[in-house]
């Protein structure tokens, strides 16, 4: 397994795990407060929509866009997306942004489920169906984005999909056994790690993809080849850690 493939698998697995945990919390709240049948149909519909988006977007990207341009375009998107993740993670770690709390999210969604009026459509509780569908679709879109961008650049969409599927199965099985929100998953730490991986690979691939503007259209050479990925990871870790330390000093102290 190459370093790109190992990074691909780690990033997709971790990103998928946190997104699936968030979707699971909402579906669980709908299942408990409004009934499991509608919540599960909403989940199935969401997963089907995601599979369709993945297949169409993945096929369109690979078939219609030249490989060299794809590397630059997808690398750039991955870098922008990754820096947004990293920015949020740094602000959370510095205490300047609220940490994500699954217990709190479960309480909020359950309260919404209990207060919503009953409305039947297609034999389903429409509120539970729509909320579950949207949760799975919206949380899953981030996973699809990462699967496609990483998969295309590392030339291994099946490996990326396998990483996402493994995370999905792990979350579902854990959730089914515990039957409560997976609040003990260190989501904020995992999101930090994913932000670092996305920023690292996004930097590597987007700059490598600049080779598309040369006459040869060959990828730009990084000093040290693939080892540059490791160096970039170390740089992003160091810079993020220093930023957290600096912002912690600037953050207002609680009395």
């Amino acid at each position, binding site marked *: 397994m190459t370093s790109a493939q190992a990074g691909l698998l780690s990033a997709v697995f971790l990103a998928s795990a946190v997104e699936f945990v968030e979707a699971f919390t909402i579906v669980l709240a709908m299942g408990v407060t409004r009934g499991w049948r509608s919540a599960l149909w909403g989940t199935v519909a969401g997963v089907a929509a995601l599979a369709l988006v993945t297949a169409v977007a993945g096929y369109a990207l690979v078939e219609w866009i030249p490989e060299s341009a794809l590397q*630059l375009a997808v690398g*750039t*998107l991955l*870098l*922008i*997306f990754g*820096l*947004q993740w*990293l*920015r*949020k993670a*740094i*602000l959370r770690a*510095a205490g*300047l*942004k609220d940490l994500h709390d699954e217990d709190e999210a479960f309480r909020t969604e359950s309260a919404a489920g209990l207060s919503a009026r009953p409305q039947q459509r297609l034999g389903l509780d429409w509120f539970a169906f729509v909320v579950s569908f949207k949760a799975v679709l919206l949380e899953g*879109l*981030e996973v699809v*984005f990462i699967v496609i961008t990483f998969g295309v650049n590392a030339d291994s969409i099946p490996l990326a999909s396998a990483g996402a599927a493994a995370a999905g199965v792990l979350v579902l099985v854990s959730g089914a056994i515990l039957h409560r929100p997976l609040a003990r998953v260190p989501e904020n730490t995992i999101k930090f790690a994913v932000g670092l991986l996305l*920023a690292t690979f996004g*930097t590597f691939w*987007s*700059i*490598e993809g*600049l*080779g598309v*503007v*040369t006459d040869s259209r060959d990828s*730009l*050479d*990084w*000093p040290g080849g693939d080892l*540059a990925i490791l160096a*970039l990871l170390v*740089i*992003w870790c160091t*810079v993020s850690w220093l*930023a957290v330390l*600096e*912002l912690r000093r*600037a*953050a*207002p102290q609680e009395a």
Partner: protein
Amino acid sequence: MRYVKAFGRFWFDFVVGEDWRIAAGVVAVLAVGALALRAELVSDSLLAVLLAAAIVVVALVSVRSAGYGEATRP
């Protein structure tokens, strides 16, 4: 038209996120990199390192600006 706008807005928020300066900065850095590459101003290896450093600066500007904004919020 309303749905087209909402669709566009969703994808803008999804990719660009909370701080448009990150997207703008990254695109600007890569555009300058493309021009430098075409003009063969420096070697590929040096250019890669310089561009990576510029991207780190873009990220730091965004984080510091958001961080100090939050820290000084009453």
